């Protein structure tokens, strides 16, 4: 009798909790993304991806029985504006978590407010400075530029290439990459024989390339840039008839690069997430199912090509969602602690295991070496 009474009470309480939650405000995700401006090719797929998964989760009954609402602002690729939108998200929209900062600059501009408000924050930026040194409330899902350099050097050494010419872009991405590349080279046993730069809007890079070509013993070229600039570099390399192996970075990991560079991109290699080549992964690869699932969903909903950058948004969303489920609430401190305890999470970017010392949690193996072959991405074994 007594146990029956208890059970009834429990059921009533649950029902009450349920109806309460339905009536309760939705859980709010705040996002500041670069949906327009030069970084739009990063921010746009990020926003679309977040919206897809928020809608999907809501259709499946929401999170903790509550609906999720995405509140997003576009910083127009201006890092300075990210800060004021963050203020608005925290103070006016009262969001439960922040995702975004498409670029490293925006992320770093947002962080002081995040720390003061003590709110969990998952950045989509690529710079190593986001997680080194570790910042209590900030996490990161995108690969580090240092990991890209290390992955390239590992592959180059395997091919017996140790004298490498670096050509980096004067954008934030390129300059951070340049710094990390120069730092990683001695450790990898690689000599950087040239350190040239070009502007993201440059229309001709042949002067720099002619200089690189004239260097004695140069064995490969490593281009560290984002978006369209590397396509111009690739075309110029072909124009000059330079036959050296060329490495690009994950900054060109979208179909647009192949389209713009055309035949000039043939044979170039780049480190990138497995998302570019879901069908070529081994069946035993834990990422295979996830990548295929995301690619299918994204292409179906948006009709546009897949890029690694939307994948980062997906990973951020699911790391946060799992943390909320484990915490059983959206209490900011609890969710933060649970995000930090993320272990064995399989995302589009790789396997993630975070710790108080590591707020990224990706291993170098997260990057696959990919070669452009017949206008397609091809996994290098």
């Amino acid at each position, binding site marked *: 009798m007594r146990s029956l009474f208890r059970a009834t009470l429990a059921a009533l309480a649950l029902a009450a909790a349920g109806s309460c939650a339905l009536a309760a405000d939705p859980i709010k995700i705040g996002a500041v993304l670069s949906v327009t401006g030069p970084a739009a090719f990063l921010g746009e797929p990020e926003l679309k991806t977040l919206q897809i998964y928020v809608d999907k989760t809501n259709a499946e009954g929401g999170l903790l029985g509550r609906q999720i609402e995405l509140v997003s602002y576009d910083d127009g690729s201006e890092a300075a504006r990210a800060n004021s939108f963050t203020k608005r998200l925290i103070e006016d929209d009262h969001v439960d978590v922040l995702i975004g900062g498409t670029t490293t600059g925006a992320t770093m501009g947002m962080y002081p407010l995040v720390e003061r408000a003590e709110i969990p924050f998952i950045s989509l930026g690529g710079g190593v400075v986001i997680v080194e040194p570790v910042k209590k409330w900030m996490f990161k899902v995108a690969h580090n530029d240092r990991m890209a350099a290390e992955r390239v050097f590992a592959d180059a050494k395997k091919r017996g290439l140790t004298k490498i010419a670096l050509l980096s872009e004067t954008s934030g991405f390129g300059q951070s990459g340049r710094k990390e590349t120069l730092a990683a080279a001695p450790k990898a046993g690689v000599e950087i024989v040239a350190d040239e730069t*070009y*502007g993201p*809007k440059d229309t*001709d890079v042949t002067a*720099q390339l*002619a200089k690189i070509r004239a260097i004695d013993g140069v064995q490969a070229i490593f281009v560290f840039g984002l978006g*369209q600039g590397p396509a111009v570099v690739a075309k110029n390399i072909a*124009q*000059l008839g330079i036959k050296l192996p060329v490495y690009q970075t994950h900054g060109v990991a979208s179909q647009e690069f192949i389209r713009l560079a055309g035949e000039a991109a043939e044979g170039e290699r780049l480190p990138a997430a497995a998302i570019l080549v879901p069908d070529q992964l081994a069946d035993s690869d834990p990422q295979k199912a996830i990548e295929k699932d995301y690619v299918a969903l994204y292409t179906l909903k948006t009709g546009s090509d897949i890029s690694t950058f939307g994948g980062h948004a997906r990973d951020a969303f699911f790391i946060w969602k799992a943390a909320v489920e484990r915490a059983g609430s959206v209490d900011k401190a609890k969710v933060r602690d649970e995000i930090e305890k993320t272990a064995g999470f399989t995302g589009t970017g790789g396997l993630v295991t975070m710790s108080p010392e590591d707020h990224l949690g990706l291993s170098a193996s997260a990057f696959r070496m990919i070669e452009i072959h017949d206008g397609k991405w091809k996994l290098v074994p």
Partner: protein
Amino acid sequence: MSQFLQSIFAGVTVGATYALAALGFSIIYNASGVINFAQGEFIMLGGMIAAFLVALGAPLALAVVAAVIVVAAIGLIVAKTAVEPARGADVTTLIIITIGVSMVLRGGVEVTMGKGGHALPPFSGDKPIVLAGATILPQSLWVVATTLVVVAGLALFFERTRLGKGILATAHNRLAAQLVGVDTRRVLSVSFVLSAALGAIGGILIAPIANTSYDAGVMLGLKGFVAATIGGLGSGVGAVAGGVALGLLESLTAGYLSSAYKDAAAFVIVLVILLVRPSGMFGAASSSRV
């Protein structure tokens, strides 16, 4: 030697596109005293519209001609709807209007043609021509040759035609030109059409080499303005000389000094020119403009 020649080739190619942009600035400056900050957008529109038409399946030659005509028409619309109604306003207001126009054009392209980059196929193949160890793309020859033809055509237009002379007269003295019967309002429209067409030609020529996107005009427009300043605003010879000088300066700095100083070199030269010869290399205030 081959490295030097390579830098020269690169500099002349890029310089020719700067020259076309600078000419656009100068023509409108002469006709109205306004620095048209939408000039970069005309360059971008040329490349984007041509690439868009080619992607739709139009033959390259048709796409190129159509793009120039469409952009020239846009130039006319800009003159008629944005600049002419504000005719009485001072030059600062007009300049701000052109900045607004540039934002509208850029935004319009962003919304209708997308944010991605676009490539235009080269006019006659992409097999580089080897010359004394340096290589040059056939497209670069197109750029340089077309620029020469355009400059020659403009010179004839301004010296031999009634309309061209009218523009020159307006540049010298608007009131006097009106008194002798030059329709100065028509001069403004014509100058916008000319500048827009020049910009479009530059944008189309460079698109196969450098690709194009909705925001490609910002930097090219800025460099064109710098070239026009170096050469002397309002001077036709100055625009061409300024453009080529700027292109050469950039590529030689990148090739011999350091690529990191490439853009800095351009702006240092502007400062020097403004200090030493504020009217630019060819822009003596009393000499003939255009």
